C-alpha cells in the first residue's frame, strides 16, 4: 500500500494536518477553551483535513491541472494584480456568492443548490471554530444574563440573554439546517422527477450526499426541538445520530461529491486565464478563417496533450489542434469523402 501513496501529497497533507493541530492548540489557548464534548468532531475534522489536502495535492499534479494552476498564479503576479483582482472579485460575487451559473442550469437546481450551499457554509463557519476551541461563549462575570463572545481567547463582544442577537447566534446551526433541508428537498424532488437526472444519477454520487445532509440537518434541528418540546427525552438518540452523520460527512469529504466544495474555487483561476486569453492574440482556424480560441490556450493544449502522450502534430508540420471544432469536423468529413471517392463508390 505504501508504494501507491503519493509522496508529495503525503508530505503536504502531513504538514497541513500538523499545522491545523498546532493552530487548534494555539487558538484554543493550549486547549483551555476546548470543549471535550466535541472531541469526536475534532478527530473527524483532522482526518478530513489530511484527506482533503492529500487528494487536492494529487489532483494538482495532473498535467492539465498543474498547467492551469501555475499559469493562473503567474498571470496574477504578472504586474496586473489590480486588473485580475477586479476580475476575481467580480467572478467571486457573480458565480460564488450568487451562484448565477447554476441558476442558469435550471431554476430548481439553482435555488436548491443556493439554499443548500449557503446552509452548509454557514454551518461550517459556526462548527469549525467551535470544534477547534477558537470561539466560545462565557457568562459575563457579575451577572447571569449577559454572554461574552470569546475568539482565540479574546473577548470580542457581548449580548444579552433572550435578546434578538442571542436567538440569532444560539440558533445559527438551526437556521443553516433549515436552509439545507429546503435545498435538499428541492434537489431530491428534481432527482425523482427529471428523466435525464434519473438516467445518469447514481446512489453513491447523487443520493447519498443529499441523504447525508438531510440526516445531519434533521438531527441537528432535532436536538433543539427535543430540549424545547420533549424535555430532552430523545437527546441521546439525536445527539449520537447527529455526531455519527457529521463525522461520516467529514470522513467522506475527501473521497466523494463533497470534494467539489474544495475543488470549485479553481474556477477563479480559470477566470483569470480566460481574461488574459481574451485580451491576447487569437488563433485563427485554417478551415473557417475565424478566430476561435486564444493562441495561449492552443499552445497550452499542445503542450498538455504531448505530456499526456498524445501527438496531434501532422506529418507535414502544423497540428490538428490548430483547427476549431467546426474545422475538425470538416476535416473528418472531407477525409471520409476522399476515401469514398478513391474507392470508386460514394455509397456502399
Amino acid at each position, binding site marked *: 500500500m505504501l508504494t501507491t501513496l503519493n509522496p508529495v501529497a503525503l508530505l503536504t497533507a502531513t504538514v497541513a494536518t500538523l499545522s491545523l493541530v498546532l493552530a487548534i492548540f494555539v487558538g484554543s489557548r493550549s486547549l483551555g477553551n476546548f470543549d471535550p464534548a466535541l472531541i469526536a468532531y475534532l478527530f473527524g475534522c483532522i482526518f478530513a483535513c489530511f484527506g482533503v489536502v492529500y487528494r487536492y495535492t494529487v489532483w494538482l499534479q495532473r498535467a492539465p491541472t498543474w498547467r492551469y494552476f501555475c499559469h493562473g498564479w503567474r498571470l496574477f503576479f504578472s504586474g496586473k494584480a489590480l486588473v485580475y483582482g477586479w476580475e476575481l472579485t467580480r467572478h467571486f460575487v457573480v458565480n460564488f456568492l450568487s451562484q448565477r451559473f447554476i441558476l442558469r442550469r435550471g431554476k430548481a437546481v439553482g435555488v436548491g443548490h443556493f439554499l443548500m450551499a449557503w446552509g452548509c457554509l454557514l454551518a461550517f463557519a459556526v462548527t469549525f471554530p467551535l470544534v477547534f476551541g477558537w470561539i466560545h461563549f462565557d457568562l459575563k462575570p457579575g451577572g447571569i444574563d449577559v454572554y461574552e463572545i470569546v475568539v482565540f481567547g479574546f473577548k470580542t463582544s457581548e449580548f444579552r440573554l433572550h435578546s434578538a442577537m442571542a436567538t440569532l447566534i444560539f440558533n445559527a446551526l438551526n437556521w443553516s439546517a433549515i436552509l439545507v433541508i429546503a435545498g435538499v428537498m428541492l434537489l431530491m424532488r428534481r432527482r425523482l422527477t427529471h428523466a435525464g437526472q434519473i438516467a445518469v444519477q447514481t446512489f453513491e454520487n447523487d443520493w447519498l450526499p443529499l441523504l447525508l445532509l438531510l440526516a445531519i440537518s434533521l438531527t441537528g434541528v432535532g436536538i433543539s426541538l427535543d430540549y424545547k418540546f420533549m424535555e430532552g427525552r430523545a437527546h441521546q438518540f439525536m445527539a449520537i445520530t447527529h455526531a455519527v452523520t457529521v463525522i461520516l460527512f467529514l470522513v467522506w469529504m475527501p473521497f466523494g461529491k463533497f470534494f467539489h466544495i474544495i475543488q470549485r474555487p479553481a474556477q477563479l483561476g480559470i477566470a483569470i486565464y480566460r481574461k488574459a486569453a481574451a485580451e491576447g492574440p487569437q488563433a485563427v482556424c485554417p478551415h473557417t478563417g475565424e478566430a476561435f480560441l486564444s493562441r495561449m490556450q492552443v499552445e497550452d493544449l499542445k503542450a498538455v496533450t504531448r505530456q499526456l502522450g498524445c501527438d496531434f502534430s501532422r506529418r507535414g508540420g502544423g*497540428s490538428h489542434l490548430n483547427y476549431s471544432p467546426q474545422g475538425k469536423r470538416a476535416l473528418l468529413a472531407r477525409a471520409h469523402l476522399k476515401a469514398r471517392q478513391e474507392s470508386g463508390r460514394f455509397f456502399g
Partner: protein
Amino acid sequence: MNTFRLDQEFFLDPQRCIGCHACEMACAECETNGQLPMIHVDYVERYSTPQTAVQVCMHCEDPVCARVCPAVAIEKDEFGVVHSAKTDRCIACSNCVNACPFGVPRKIEPMDLMMKCNLCYDRTSAGKRPMCATVCPSGALFYGTREEMSRMRPNSSPVNTFRFGKQTVKTRVNIMMPLGATVLVVDADE
C-alpha cells in the same frame, strides 16, 4: 434498472447526410441534454459544395477530452459511454472542446458547463436507440447490431480507428468506410 444493450453499436455514414436537421430536432428531445441539441450538422464547404456532414460523439476508448480536463469532470462508464462533464466539477475551461479531435463537445457559456452527445443515455440505458438514429431519413445515422449493418451495407466496412496527424484514436462509434478499410486518416493539410 439499466438495460443497456452491448450488442448494439452506432454507425455513422456522413456521406449519406442530406442536411435535413431532423437529427438535431430529435437530439433536443434527449432529457439528459436539458433539451439542448448536441449533434452537429455542418456544411463542409459552404461556398463550393452542398455537402453536409453529421457528427455525434464518437465515445473514444481513451477519450482525450477526459484526459485534458483539469477538473476530472469527464468520465467513461462501464458501457464505454463518455458522459457530459459532471456538473459539480466542470470549471468551463474549454480544454475538452478544443482537444476533441472530432470537434464534438460544446461549452454552454451561460451555464459554465461542457455538454455533449452522451448517446441519449436516458434511452440507451433503457435498451432504446438514440433519438437521432430513430429519425434519420437517409441512413447517415444507424444504431443496431453489426449483423444488421452488414446486411444493409454489404459494400462498406465499419471503421473505428482514426488517425489525426501522428495520433491514432479508437472509438466506440463506427464510421462506414469502403469495404475492407480499417482506418480513416484525417491528416490536416494546412
